[in-house]
Every structure is written in C-alpha cells, then in structure tokens.
C-alpha cells in the first residue's frame, strides 16, 4: 500500500486528476476548503471512500459533507493511530467492495451490450425472414388466385352448352384487361364454309363465308392477310388482334378429321400489357378448346340426330325400333301419331300377342332382314324387319320395322286377278259358246225344218218340238254365260231385277242341288239401271255363299220387291247365320272365314263396291230361328 500525503487541498487536487486512489483522507483545518476538495474527490474518484478528520464539526457541516461529497466517515481530532487505521481499513474494504462492484458492473454492462447487439442482429434476421415470407406468401396467394380463377373458368365452361355462353364467359374474363374487343370464333368442319360466331352490337350472331383462308397454327398476332379476311367479312376495320388456334379433337374425329377453329380477340393493349394477356390466354387455351370442341360436337350431333329424326318423320310408312320383347324403343312420327308406345303389337295392332306373320323373331334369330305380312284393322302391312347390330359379332337385340301399307296394292292385285279370272272365263265361255252355238243353231234350225215337214198330230212332231225347246234353252244358257263373263267395260242398261236373277239361277244349279229354292219375283216392269253382268256376279256370289253356309240341306229364298222407289233383292238362307264379331267386318276387303286358299275375301267387299257404284246399298241381318239375309237395295230407274 502506498500512502501519499499532501499538505494542502490545492496540491492534492492536482493529484486527483492524475492518479487513482483507494481512499482519500482529509484533515480539515478550517474553512470550506476541505468540503470543496471532497466534492471534487467524489467527482474524480467516486469509488474511493472519503474520510474527513476534523476537530470540531457542526451538524451543518456533516449534513453538507454527506449530501454533497458523500463522506464515508467523520472522525474527531485528536484520535489514536489505531482508530485511524481501523477507519482506513474499513474505508479500504469499502473501496475494494466498490471496486469489485464496479468491475462487475462493467462486465455486466459489456455483456448487456453484447446481448443487445445479438438481439439487434436477430431482429434484423427475423425482419428479413418475415419480409421474405410475406413476399412469397403474396406470390403464392397470387398464384393461387390465378389458379382459382382458372379453375372457376374451367368450371364455368364445363357447364355451358352453347357457344354464346362460352364466348360470354370469355368476354367477361377479358374485361379485366380493359381495351378489349369481343372474341370472335371462326371454325370450319371440312367443306368450303367458314363459320363466324361473334357479338354484333351485343347480340350473339352466327355468319358464314365461302372465302377460304388459312388458320394460323399457333397463338399469334395475326398476319395482315388474316386481319383483312376478318375485316372484309364483318365490314369494319380490325386494328389490332390476337388469334389463338383451338384444337377440335372430338369434332374433327366426328366430321372426318377436318375440323379447325381459331379465336380472334381484338385489343388495344400496349406491348407491356401484352405479356400478362398472352399468359392469360395460354392458360385458357386448352379449356376453351375443349369446351368449344364439346359444344361444337354436341351441335353437330344434335343437327345430325335432328336430321335423322326428320328423315324418318318424313317417311310415309310407320317405322319403329323394336326390342326382343317387342317393346317400341323409338319410332317415327307416322308411327307415334297413330299409336301409343308400348309393345308394338299392343300399340300398332291392339293385340294381346304378336301379330300373325310378324317377321321380328325370325329377323332376330337369323340376324338377317326379313319381311312378313300382318293385318291390322282391315289393312295389310308388309313389315320389313331389319336387325340392328350395335356391336360386331353380337346377336341383334333390336330391329327396325318398316310398315308398308300394301292394302291398296294387294286389293288392286286381287281385283286384277279377279278380273283376269273373269276375262279368262269370258274367253273360254266365248270359245265354248261359239263351238256350241254352231251345232245348236244347226240343230234347232234343222228341227224347225223337220217340224215344218212332220205331220202335226204325230208323236214325231211332239218329239221334235221337245228337241227344239231344249236347243232353245241351251242357247239361252250360253247367252247368259256369255253375258255373265263379259269384261268390266260393259255399258249400263235398264233391266229388271227379276231378269237378272232369272239369268243367274241356271248357273247355280250345282250349288243349289242340295237345297230347296224358293223364288218370289215381284218387280216385273220395274227397272233398275245397272251393268247386268256385274249385278249377276253379285247375286251369284251371294247365292253361292249362302249355299256354302248351309252345311245341311236347307232352304234358299230369293225375293225381289218394290219399296218406295227402290228395288229390293233379298237372299235368305237357313244356315247358322253370322256371328256378331264377323258381321262387323264382312264387308272389309280380305276378310274371310274360309280356309286359306278357298277365297280371296274380296267377294263381299267387291259386291259392296259394285252395288254402291249403282247408287245402291247392301246390308245384312241374321234371321230367326237361324240363317242370314242379305238385302240389296237399288234405286228404281226407268228409261226416259
């Protein structure tokens, strides 16, 4: 330890500024000098405890010494050396305590500083990170937003079914770029026509042109030539545009590989704005392509289907697609306008079971077209069944049925057959008549000559007379036969019904041989105007039918009578009569109850049409106890 003594405060003051002390001892002589020094000592050496030794100290001085200079100890003079040392010891202890505290303080403040620096740099890093994260977050959300928009766009497109709606959606999307024109879609489906879909004055419009021009194969600002085509077509200038080719994969496949389309968007974007727009369009090119492709295909399919439908509807014949259970799958208008759709035999023929002659089972079995004839409501249909093969090498489950109404053709055919038959009979009869008439003429004439020569009262004369009568009768029969079998084109004439019947009956002798014939003819002198041979045919038919209806020997009654300006011919038999369900249909063409091959079914329908041709009617009723009666009513007509 080193103790430095200085005699005066002034001397010691200088020392305060240059050296460090562990404790400062001041012996106060007099005056404020000591206090002043201690204040300075506190200033310069704060951790050196200060001790003031004075002879006398007022309370005032002590207070000031503590307040101003923070004096550690006051000691009263005189004092022992031990006391001094003790105090000094204590002061030194204090000092060393201060010293170590100040060292500690310094250390801790240093460490504090270090901590602060660290915190600071950490904060910087955090801030940087945060910024970075914020930035990438923003980017992400932008990207997400963009994708969301794209997804929404795709979703919107997916639910649209018209060009108008799809272009409408694109149009709405494009608005955010401003300076945008409405999109124009141009497409071709093979063939020379180019179609344009556009909004003109806000209205969606389709136009077309036959002018051909190349569609660009990549998205681009179009060539001047392309722009010129657009401008020419729409009759207005196209300043700046952007075209995007669209791939029509499905439609191309459907129309045979030649579908192509472009989308043209007018704009007035600057070069700087073009970038985002091009990105925007390239994002949307594929979904747009797909949506437009789909709609185009749908349109084509519906046009196609509509055309098919109209084709089938335009056909004269009923057509129906029928499945294995005879259910009508589809049918044309001609089929549906007449019939409800269930099973074909229920709806078409109103039957409970498949029609007789239906070719459907055979067509399904063989897988080959078949045809057959069915009868529905007195009409005859030729049914052509074409199997529908949806998959190769499989059995058909559907057939297309075409129902051709051949009623008229068949009726004509059978009438022709009838007429040919009658013609053949006529010719035969003519030939026979000629062959018979010659010898008959000679026979009768010779008999007449012999009669002239024979004695009138002998047996010879009577015999010759009988021969003459027989030849005369034979001649009449031949004449009747000739008249009966004349062709259709005979003139009408005034005749009595009685005569027609008398002419006809001899030809029915064989049919009538089992039955009793009663004839009541009461219209002598009352004329009708008819073609006699046709009326003969009708009467012949009715009597012949009546004879056939009577299985047991019966009675046939033929009556003619007058009734209020009409002539009635009644033909009545004692057969079983006609059941009601048959009665309804007996005058329908082709209706027959006879066995296959035993009648054309044309007899009564032809009889009806013949009688109606003469201005008359033919009707039927059953009679008691059993039997049927046909009544022909013809107007009475007399020659002028």
């Amino acid at each position: 330890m080193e103790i430095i003594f200085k005699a005066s405060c002034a001397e010691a003051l200088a020392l305060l500024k240059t050296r460090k002390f562990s404790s400062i001892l001041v012996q106060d002589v007099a005056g404020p000098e000591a206090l002043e020094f201690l204040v300075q000592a506190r200033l310069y050496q704060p951790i050196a405890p200060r001790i003031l030794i004075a002879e006398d100290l007022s309370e005032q001085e002590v207070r000031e010494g503590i307040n101003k200079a923070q004096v550690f100890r006051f000691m009263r003079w005189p004092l022992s050396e031990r006391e001094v040392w003790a105090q000094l010891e204590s002061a030194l202890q204090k000092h060393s305590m201060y010293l170590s505290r100040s060292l500690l303080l310094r250390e801790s403040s240093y460490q504090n500083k270090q901590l602060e620096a660290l915190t600071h740099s950490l904060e910087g890093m955090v801030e940087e990170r945060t910024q970075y994260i914020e930035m990438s977050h923003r980017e992400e959300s932008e990207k997400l937003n963009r994708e969301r928009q794209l997804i929404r766009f795709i979703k919107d497109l997916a639910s649209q079914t018209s060009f108008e709606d799809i272009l409408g959606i694109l149009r709405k999307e494009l608005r955010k770029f401003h300076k945008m024109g409405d999109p124009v879609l141009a497409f071709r489906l093979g063939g020379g026509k180019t179609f344009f879909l556009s909004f003109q004055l806000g209205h969606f419009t389709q136009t077309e042109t036959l002018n051909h021009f190349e569609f660009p194969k990549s998205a681009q600002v179009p060539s001047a030539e392309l722009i010129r085509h657009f401008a020419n077509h729409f009759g207005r200038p196209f300043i700046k545009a952007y075209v995007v080719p669209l791939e029509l994969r499905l439609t191309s496949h459907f129309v045979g590989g030649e579908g192509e389309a472009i989308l043209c968007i007018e704009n007035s974007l600057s070069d700087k704005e073009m970038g985002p727009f091009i990105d925007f369009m390239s994002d949307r090119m594929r979904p747009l392509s797909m949506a437009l492709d789909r709609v185009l295909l749908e349109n084509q399919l519906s046009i196609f289907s509509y055309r098919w439908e109209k084709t089938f509807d335009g056909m004269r014949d009923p057509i129906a697609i029928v499945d294995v259970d005879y259910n009508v799958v589809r049918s044309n208008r001609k089929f549906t306008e007449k019939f409800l759709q269930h099973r074909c035999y229920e709806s078409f023929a109103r039957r409970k079971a498949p029609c007789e002659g239906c070719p459907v089972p055979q067509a399904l079995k063989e897988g080959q077209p078949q045809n057959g004839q069915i009868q529905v409501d007195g009409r005859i249909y030729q049914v052509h069944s074409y199997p529908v093969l949806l998959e190769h090498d499989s059995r058909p489950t559907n057939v297309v049925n075409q129902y051709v109404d051949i009623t008229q053709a068949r009726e004509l055919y059978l009438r022709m057959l009838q007429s040919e038959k009658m013609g053949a009979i006529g010719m035969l009869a003519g030939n026979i008549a000629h062959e018979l008439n010659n010898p008959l003429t000679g026979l009768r004439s010779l008999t007449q000559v012999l009669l002239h020569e024979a004695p009138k009262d002998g047996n010879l004369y009577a015999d010759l007379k009988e021969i003459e009568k027989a030849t005369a009768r034979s001649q009449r029969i031949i004449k009747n036969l000739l008249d009966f079998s004349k062709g259709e084109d005979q003139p009408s004439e005034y005749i009595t019904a009685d005569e027609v019947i008398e002419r006809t009956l001899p030809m029915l002798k064989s049919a009538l041989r089992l039955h009793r014939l009663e004839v009541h003819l009461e219209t002598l002198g009352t004329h009708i105007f008819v073609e006699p041979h046709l009326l003969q045919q009708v009467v012949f038919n009715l009597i012949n039918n009546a004879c056939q209806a009577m299985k047991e020997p019966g009675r046939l009654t033929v009556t003619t009578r007058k009734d209020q300006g009409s002539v009635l011919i009644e033909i009545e038999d004692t057969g079983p009569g006609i059941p009601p369900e048959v009665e309804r249909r007996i005058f329908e063409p082709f209706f027959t109850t006879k066995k296959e091959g035993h009648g054309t079914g044309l007899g009564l329908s032809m009889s009806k049409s013949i009688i109606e041709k003469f201005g008359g009617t033919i009707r039927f009723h059953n009679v008691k106890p059993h039997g049927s009666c046909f009544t022909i009513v013809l107007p009475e007509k007399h020659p002028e």
Partner: protein
Amino acid sequence: MKVLIVDDEVLVRRSLGRALKGKGFEVMEAVDGTEGLQVWKTWQPDLVFLDVLMPGLTGPEVLKEVGSDSKAKVILMSAFSGEHNMQTAQQMGADLFVPKPFEDIFAIVKMAEDLLS
C-alpha cells in the same frame, strides 16, 4: 235362183239347204272357205250364206278374194256376235248380218227371199 251355203257346221248347211230347197231355191253347200270361194267363182250363185269363223279361209277373207267380181248378195253369219255386226259386215261387202244362233230358220229364209226380190 242359186244359193251357196258356206259353213263348216253340217247341221247349219243341211237345215238352211232344206229350208231353201223347200222354197224352190237351187242350193249348193261348201264345207269351208276355200271350197266356198271355188264354188262361188265357178257356179256364180245369186246369194251366199257365209259363216265368219271357218277352217282355211274365213268369211271376210273369202269376201276379200271375191272382191267386186261377184254380183251375188251375201248374208254373213256369226256366232261371235261381239266381233261383227251389220255395220262391219256391210263394210266388208256383205248385204246382211245374221247373228247365230238363229231363233227361227224360216225368218232367215224370209230375209233371203226379201233380199233377192
């Protein structure tokens, strides 16, 4: 008066022939058109009964062959009344047409007498 009967039916020839002979006519018969034409040319009858349908030459063919050479009156006879009538017969150069079968042979003979008088 000479009457030629041309008909392939023997009974017609015989009946007509007997009836005419009974009235005092001179009668010759021919069995078909060919023979008839020959007799017509050689015998020069005043009246000819001519059937239409015959083997060989038909009545109209015989008429055509004879042409205007003959002064004979002609009565054409046919059982096929539909084919011929008075008008067509006269166009062919016949004077009368008689459809077969006859109702009364004496009416025919009367017609022949009237035609010749």
